[in-house]
């Protein structure tokens, strides 16, 4: 029988709902600070060049300009892993790289000043392709990275950070295989997560050693704990505003933060750096490029006997979190494919285009989308149904995997077999699946096909969360946890968990603002960790506060604490509900009680999502329409249905499913210009184009916390591209092997398919 909850599992209004629908929610560009200056960035017109001269005299002389900075006069801060990206450098490494910074009274004046800066470039040869960058005579981006290879390893993941997945004996594995397939496949767009609000940061030095940063961010603490060492340990206070979408990209923004802080330091005024849409599209962060030279061995029964290969990850001009994304991607590959023999080596490569950054799907989407054509090849040869294959191979309780930091973990999570069974049934897989490369239906030039892909992530319990819960004598509670709001509704869900523990009405629990000064450490909303990890810290803090309260009440009521309970701001013996003491009688009107909660990583639980997709392909126009999508998952326990559905619908957003069809940034492969840095030419799905989508959500209690839930938001985009690739292949009757499947690719494939028939 399902447990009875007062709040958990019900759709309740978000704590910020009123602010959102009345326009009162404060986003970064809505902050009005006295003395605020506007920062702008002069950007490179060359993909690779040395700056011979940057003449700023005319810009400095413009009325209203407060500062103009070049690489000669910025602080020696460095971002990246290992640290390599300077605030400004004497060299530019992509079209759009920063050359100079301006702070002025208005944005218009700052922009005018940019036009007055004269730059002399000494152009260098650029390298735009990941394989070209590895050639011996390739142009070199950084002296510190010979051969354009960035060293593996992410310091926060420790010395054994996963970068080369090795176990068993691949030679023996391949010799045991009935089918062996190999090939090189890419998922390298580049693709842009493109949240609707561009990134923005305001920096202000309260004293020479104390910096305040306001930003549109998904994880407020990063602008403190990551930037502290990068900036020489000033005291940084990071405050998050409402964030107009992030999808990883605005998790934190080291370079915009540097620009604002550098300008604020010289002007002694708060400075805002807000990117334009063109900057967001062309000079912020993209999905990492992924190219896989892989080989897979399979038995006829679907057992994966071996996997070997080289995974080339293209990070563009700058690398920040790519080694972490590689670690997680390699971990997730093992959740997807049970296999005893692995030899999958990653190489992280820099090239002369926009830098890669954190994007929803975090390494796994990139690796598994490139893996899909290879899996498809093998399943076609072995004539295996993909649903049965994924069912057989997705990690089961008791099975192990190496996770991102290189340690072996054994799953104590759920068996997701019922999700695939129920999902397949609800989708009608058995009726629609006609075998490999066989359309479900053909009607003239329109051909239908189906595909499925699964994805899971064991980051739901990652990293550290800390929370305080304070009980006030007026029967209210405050949750101090440094969580910002970028769309998931997680602040409201966490407050709901605290309300459930404390048995308070929702409106009597308040969240402290996302500000590192008033909250303990919180890693942030990444990797679907909000529900399990942050939730655990909040629940423990609420339980701790409740326990302290009941202890204090015990003496007054002359009872043992465990015979007491609390509800609606009153304490009473469980068996004598009429004998109620309000919290103020226990705490006094001038007292409070605070509980603390902490959670450290646990990688033994994974989430799971299967995406079933039906497409319709027109072989006359080459257009691919997604006809229907079904998402199937098991989240243990739903915290809030509406918010959860929102996360699952998100499969169409943030460079997800549609990167298989029409989403991409198009680079001029000679000069490195982006040809579509605007929202007319970077294609996105509109309201009338949303296909029917169903979410099938199971609730098998998970061994997480008292509410038995895990999060799933990180992975909603991940299975989409692979599922669509498979569906289009089946519709057309020929293997599609490259993303996105644009009309010209469809028409070429249809022609090939006709010839071979």
């Amino acid at each position, binding site marked *: 029988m399902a447990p009875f909850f007062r709040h958990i599992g019900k759709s309740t209004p978000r704590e910020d709902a009123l602010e959102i629908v009345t326009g009162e929610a404060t*986003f970064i560009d809505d902050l009005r600070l006295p003395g605020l200056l506007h920062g702008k960035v002069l950007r490179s017109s060359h993909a690779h060049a040395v700056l011979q001269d940057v003449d700023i005299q005319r810009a400095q002389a413009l009325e209203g300009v407060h500062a103009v900075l070049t690489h000669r006069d910025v602080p020696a801060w460095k971002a990246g892993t290992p640290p390599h990206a300077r605030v400004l450098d004497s060299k530019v490494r992509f079209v759009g790289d920063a050359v100079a910074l301006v702070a002025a009274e208005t944005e218009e004046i700052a922009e005018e000043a940019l036009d007055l800066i004269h730059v002399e470039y000494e152009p260098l040869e650029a390298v735009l392709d990941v394989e070209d960058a590895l050639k011996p005579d390739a142009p070199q981006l950084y002296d510190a990275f010979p051969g354009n290879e960035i060293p593996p390893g992410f310091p926060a993941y420790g010395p054994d950070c996963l970068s080369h997945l090795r176990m068993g004996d691949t030679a023996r594995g391949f010799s045991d295989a009935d089918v062996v397939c190999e090939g090189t496949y890419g998922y390298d767009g580049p693709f842009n997560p493109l949240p609707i*609000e561009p990134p923005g940061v305001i920096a202000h030095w309260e004293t020479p050693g104390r910096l305040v940063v306001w930003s549109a961010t998904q994880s407020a603490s990063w602008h403190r704990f990551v930037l502290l060492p990068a900036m020489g340990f000033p005291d940084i206070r990071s405050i998050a505003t409402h964030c107009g979408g992030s999808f990883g990209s605005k998790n934190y923004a080291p370079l915009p933060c540097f620009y604002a802080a550098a300008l604020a330091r010289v002007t002694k005024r708060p400075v805002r750096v807000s990117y334009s849409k063109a900057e967001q599209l062309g000079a912020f962060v993209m999905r990492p490029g992924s190219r896989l030279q892989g080989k897979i061995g399979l038995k006829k029964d679907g057992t994966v006997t071996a996997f070997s290969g080289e995974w080339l990850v293209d990070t563009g001009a700058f690398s920040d979190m790519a080694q972490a994304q590689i670690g997680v991607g390699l971990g997730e590959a093992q959740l997807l494919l049970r296999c005893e023999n692995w030899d999958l080596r990653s190489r992280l490569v820099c090239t002369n285009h926009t830098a890669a950054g954190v994007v929803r799907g975090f390494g796994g989407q990139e690796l598994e989308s490139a893996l899909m054509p290879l899996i498809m090849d093998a399943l076609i040869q072995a004539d295996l149904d993909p649903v049965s294959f994924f069912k057989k191979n997705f990690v089961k309780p008791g099975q192990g995997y190496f996770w991102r930091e290189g340690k072996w973990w054994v799953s104590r999570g759920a068996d997701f077999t019922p999700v695939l069974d129920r999902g397949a049934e609800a989708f009608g897989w058995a009726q629609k699946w006609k075998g490999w490369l066989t359309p479900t239906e053909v009607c003239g030039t329109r051909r239908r096909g189906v595909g499925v892909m699964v994805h899971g992530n064991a980051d739901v319990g990652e990293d550290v969360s800390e929370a305080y819960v304070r009980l006030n004598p007026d029967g209210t509670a405050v949750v101090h946890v440094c969580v910002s709001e970028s769309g998931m509704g997680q602040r409201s869900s966490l407050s709901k968990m605290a309300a459930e523990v404390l048995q308070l009405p929702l409106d009597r629990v308040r969240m402290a603002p996302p500000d590192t000064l008033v909250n303990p450490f919180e890693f942030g909303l990444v990797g679907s960790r909000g529900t399990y990890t942050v939730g655990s810290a909040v629940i423990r803090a609420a339980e701790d506060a409740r326990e302290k309260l009941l202890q204090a009440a015990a003496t007054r009521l002359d009872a043992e604490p465990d015979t007491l309970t609390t509800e609606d701001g009153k304490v009473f013996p469980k068996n004598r509900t009429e004998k109620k003491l309000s919290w103020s009688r226990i705490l006094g009107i001038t007292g409070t009680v605070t509980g603390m909660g902490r959670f450290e990583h646990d990688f033994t639980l994974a989430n799971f999502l299967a995406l079933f997709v039906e497409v319709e392909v027109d072989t006359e126009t080459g257009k691919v329409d997604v006809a229907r999508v079904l998402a199937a998952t098991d989240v243990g326990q739903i915290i809030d249905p509406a918010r959860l559905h929102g996360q699952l*619908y998100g499969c169409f957003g943030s460079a997800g499913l549609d990167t298989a069809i029409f989403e991409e940034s198009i680079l001029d492969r000679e000069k490195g210009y982006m040809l579509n840095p605007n929202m007319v030419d970077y294609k996105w799905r509109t309201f009338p184009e949303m296909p029917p989508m169903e979410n099938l959500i199971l609730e098998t209690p998970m061994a997480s916390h008292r509410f038995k839930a895990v999060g799933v938001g990180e992975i909603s985009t991940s299975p989409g591209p692979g599922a669509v690739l498979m569906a289009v292949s089946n519709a057309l009757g020929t293997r599609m092997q490259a993303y996105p499947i644009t009309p010209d690719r469809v028409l070429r494939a249809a022609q090939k398919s006709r010839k071979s028939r």
Partner: protein
Amino acid sequence: MADAKGRIELTVNGKRYDLGIGTGIHDVAPSHTLAHTLRETLGLTGTKIGCDQGACGACTVLMDGVPVLSCMTLTLACRGRYITTIEGLRDPDSGDLHPLQAAFVDKTAFQCGFCTPGILLSSKALLEAVPDPSEKDVAQALSGHHCRCISHYQVVEAVLEAAKHRKG
């Protein structure tokens, strides 16, 4: 105000504004968009600027009841016009939420909420013109609104709910 070359009158959320044309901080410059005037001159920051290129719909406001992209509309072209922004959607007398706002709250028809003000205003224009819209009508009316979180399904549901409530 020193270089003011005239004045412009417009009504925003029922309040009449008489603004100088010029380059002073309280003035409307000929280059100012309506979005800029609303946000920077009048302090109505509920109107959001997503792309500043007329592509995303976030900046949508109503001009004489018709949705316009305020980032692509020069303020000087708004002389004598009646503008409604998100700040003017509540009932001006009672302060009650508009049925659309109430439905968006009930259905959690938003995620990050950045596109929500624009979507609400286009929805209001739709319901004024088509009190009993179909799902397709709603989708068509909102086709110019970019939402990257994918709140579309819940938005359509909320607009239909609000229409039902208004008929009520």
